[in-house]
């Protein structure tokens, strides 16, 4: 018994890091698909070494980052209403995620651009709702959490269908659920009503993502070789080393210290960049925006630049019910689900996708 406890003391919670390398212009490259599959993103940061001023094209891309909306106290059945489905879900990519709800304690809901509404609810709510679902993968032997998936665009979900009526009845009368929602809608040009005019004015508020810029001086950067994902001793650093270094940079860790307080230092070999440009966008950022930004970042290397590579880091919401696609996501100890691109001068790229304990392997 005691040896088992001792062993547990040394165990670490499961976590996964997937590293891929490929070329951005490769016909089969999946980089855009990976971005698209990760629906809910709360923070996007990019770091360009040896860059003092942002090129105009990137400036305007950042300025164009779309707004998102917060809707307070929205009854969940409003997202299942046919007017909403016809106007928004079917006419573009509609993203919705409950706000200030905790995935390991509260009921949460998320609407994916594919038209799937995912509810992650506790046992009591599940029983009261009476909708068909499945036990959560991560709720242990005694199931305390259930996942209900409703496909709003399915042909069997038309207004007169039994299924539709039952869902509406369950959400309206049986167990009315209300949430604060984050909403975003992306449509390609088609005219139509907007979310702002669809919801009552006193309920909805539009927000602009918060953008911060900073210039880092004399930044020690690891040396990377695009075709050496695992690094080479004395020649280049590995993807894992880069990942840790980047975390340190984004959290403003002083990476020169080597003393009593911290022994962390930049992985070797490294070079010193006189300056590096760091931009962070926080909000409810949809994949379409990130794909656009990534594309513009690739174009950064169209003209000769001093930088050998740049990075784009995207953090997912810790309390989202899904990570990639419809893969169930749980919090466990940190709820991390994030990915990072390293784009090299020749448009080779590395992609790192990381998840914590209660997650499937990223795609």
């Amino acid at each position: 018994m005691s040896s088992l406890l001792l062993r547990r003391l040394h165990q670490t919670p499961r976590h996964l890091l997937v590293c891929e390398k490929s070329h951005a212009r490769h016909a089969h490259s999946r980089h855009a698909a990976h971005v698209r599959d990760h629906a809910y993103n709360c923070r996007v940061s990019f770091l360009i070494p040896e860059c003092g001023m942002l090129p105009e094209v990137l400036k305007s891309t950042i300025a164009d980052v779309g707004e998102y909306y917060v809707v307070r106290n929205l009854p969940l059945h409003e997202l299942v209403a046919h007017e909403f489905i016809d106007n928004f879900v079917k006419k573009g990519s509609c993203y919705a995620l409950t706000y200030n709800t905790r995935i390991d304690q509260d009921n949460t809901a998320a609407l994916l651009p594919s038209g799937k509404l995912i509810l992650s609810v506790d046992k009591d709510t599940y029983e009261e709702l009476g909708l068909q679902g499945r036990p959560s993968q991560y709720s242990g032997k005694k199931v305390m959490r259930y996942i209900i998936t409703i496909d709003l665009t399915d042909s069997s979900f038309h207004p007169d269908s039994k299924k539709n009526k039952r869902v509406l009845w369950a959400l309206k009368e049986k167990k009315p659920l209300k949430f604060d929602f984050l909403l975003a809608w992306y449509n390609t040009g088609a005219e139509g009503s907007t979310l702002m005019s669809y919801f009552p004015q006193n309920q909805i508020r539009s927000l602009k993502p918060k953008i911060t810029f900073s210039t880092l001086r004399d930044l020690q950067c690891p040396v990377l070789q695009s075709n050496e994902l695992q690094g080479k001793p004395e020649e280049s650093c590995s993807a894992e080393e880069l990942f840790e270094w980047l975390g340190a940079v984004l959290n403003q860790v002083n990476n020169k210290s080597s003393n009593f307080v911290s022994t962390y230092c930049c992985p070797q070999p490294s070079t010193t960049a006189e300056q590096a440009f760091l931009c962070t966008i926080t909000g409810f950022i949809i994949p379409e925006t990130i794909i656009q930004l990534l594309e513009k970042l690739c174009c950064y290397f169209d003209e000769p630049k001093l930088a050998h590579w740049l990075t784009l880091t995207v953090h997912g919401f810790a309390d989202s019910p899904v990570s990639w696609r419809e893969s169930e996501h749980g919090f466990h100890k940190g709820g991390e689900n994030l990915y990072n691109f390293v784009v090299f001068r020749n448009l080779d790229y590395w992609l790192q996708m990381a998840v914590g304990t209660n997650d499937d392997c990223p795609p």
Partner: protein
Amino acid sequence: MAPPPAAFERRVLRSAAEHHYLRVRLELPDGAARPSAALFKQLVVTALRELHGEVGAALPVDVLTYEEKTMSAILRVISSGFVKLWSALTLLGFYQNRRYISISSCIIWEQ
């Protein structure tokens, strides 16, 4: 000649991170002096020693960032010592012989 574009490669690293990271915040009763970064590190080592003895105190822990104003820090610990560090911080209850304190923590990212 430029080297050919990188061929696709995928590696999956399972629980392979060398380090784990914690974001922690120290809560002291009103009026208590705020520790400096070095004292904060000392406090972490004391916590480890109290619960896990000298073996615990020898665990490599780094204080990556520390903000004195909010007494919040990001800690890095070798993965095998993660549970030890978390438990030690949770159970620590004294600072400079005064009863206080709680350290609230959450992981920021486990690689």
